[in-house]
């Protein structure tokens, strides 16, 4: 379903973040990408979300070369994936409900159905009843759940998460890991990065290890 073909990414300034990377991910797989800081993990996900484009090679999803998508087509591609970036990027002047509502309002969902979906997504991540809470009133773990709710509210087939367990206490981190596992069990293809590979060990996911931009 997801395919990296000889992908190289050099950032302006000459730094090579990824070098000739080949990856093949099947539908419904759960893949954990590990590696040190600066290994190129974020770059990998950014190429998939087309926040960056490869210098060489191509990224295919369902047979389509997403790295060649026109700028005007990008919004529609992004709506079809669930994206959780390294910095949480919640809107701190909006309630939990409004934060999760944003993707649906972007894709012009009818408000009534959208409201139901938001509540369902919040419930799915264990934030039922916290609709009115502002992000600052939530703990770090809860904020991360909120980001996840926002990413799944559009019911994407692919979920990309960049270090979703970073900065979380062990117990919280395990909860989040369980959450991704449960999405995967529901059929979603999950690709996430972490520098704490041990956390996901018990699900025996497929593991990709990056070092200095190349797969080990």
């Amino acid at each position, binding site marked *: 379903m997801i395919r990296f073909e000889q992908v190289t990414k050099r950032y302006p300034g000459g730094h090579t973040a990824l070098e000739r990377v080949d990856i093949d991910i099947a539908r419904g797989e759960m893949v954990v990408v590990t590696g040190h800081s600066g290994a190129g993990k974020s770059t990998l996900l950014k190429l998939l979300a087309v926040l960056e484009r490869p210098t060489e090679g191509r990224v295919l999803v369902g047979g389509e070369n997403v790295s060649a998508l026109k700028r005007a087509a990008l919004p529609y591609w*992004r709506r079809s994936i669930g994206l959780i970036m390294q910095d949480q990027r919640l809107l701190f002047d909006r309630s939990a409900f409004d934060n999760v509502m944003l993707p649906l309002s*972007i894709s012009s969902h009818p408000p009534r159905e959208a409201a139901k979906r938001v509540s369902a997504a919040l419930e799915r991540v264990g934030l039922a009843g916290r609709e009115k809470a502002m992000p600052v009133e939530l703990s770090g773990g809860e904020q991360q759940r909120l980001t996840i709710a926002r990413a799944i509210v559009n019911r994407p087939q692919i979920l990309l998460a960049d270090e979703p367990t970073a900065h979380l206490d062990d117990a919280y981190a395990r909860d989040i890991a369980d959450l991704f596992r449960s999405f995967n069990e529901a059929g979603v293809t999950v690709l996430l990065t972490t520098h704490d590979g041990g956390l996901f060990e018990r699900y025996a996911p497929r593991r990709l290890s990056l070092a200095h931009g190349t797969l080990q």
Partner: protein
Amino acid sequence: MNWLRLQMRAGLRAARQMLRQPFNTLLAALVVGIAAALPATGYMLLGNLQRLAGTVSAAPEISVFMQPAASADTVKDTEKKIRALLAKDGRVELISRDTALKRFRDNEGLSEILDALPENPFADAFVVRLKDADAQRLEALRSELSKLPEVEHVQLDSDWAKRLDALIALGRQALTMLAGVLGLGLVAVTFNTIRLQLLTQRDEIEVSRLLGATDAWIRRPFHWFGALQGLLGGVLAGLLALVATRMLAQPMGELAGLYSLEFVLRPLAALDWVVLLALCALLGWLGASASVRRHLSRIA
């Protein structure tokens, strides 16, 4: 329909954003309102002045002086011709040279001057009083009258009404220029407000892009923001003009009373309101779209 729904949702998002910062919203609207209140009030006052000018020049006079050598027959003939020209909207009065002489003599201290003259220096004259006529009709009549045979001179006694008309025209021009400048100011104010809004909402713009928002979706509420702010400013401007009417109504009425004129200061009419609001909203929209076009790509 779909387009309309998208627009309405964007408008709603803009309104919500405005409510999130009520103080800023009110302040910006006040700036717009004061800028728009000046031309709005000026426009209202000019309209009233024009109405006043209309009532004043309602009974204008034209004096028609014959050549001193004109014979009695010619004078009679001329009187007929004037009547024909007037049709039914005026009266003609002949003031013969003898009458004029007598009236002049009745003024104390002037008779000696006349005694020194060999003959009556006055000519026969007509005073034409019109029921009502605008400046154009008066001017046309004046030129017709001066073409009559043996007419020496035609004098329009409502020259000052014409001057008032000219003054009003000048005022209108000045007002148009003022409105143009302030309209430009309104666009500039909105341009800047939207620039600040784009900065304030930078996070939301970036997050929205990540979540698959199109440029149009991002831009739309800012356009609405500008238009709504203009609209709000327009409402304030209209209210300010209304207050000005209230405050000026009494002194203007008293002033008019001194000249025995019937005069009531009229506030902006419904149509004026519509034009004012539409114009303010449009200018806000323009400023906003210019600002978004210029700043959005730099921000995210």
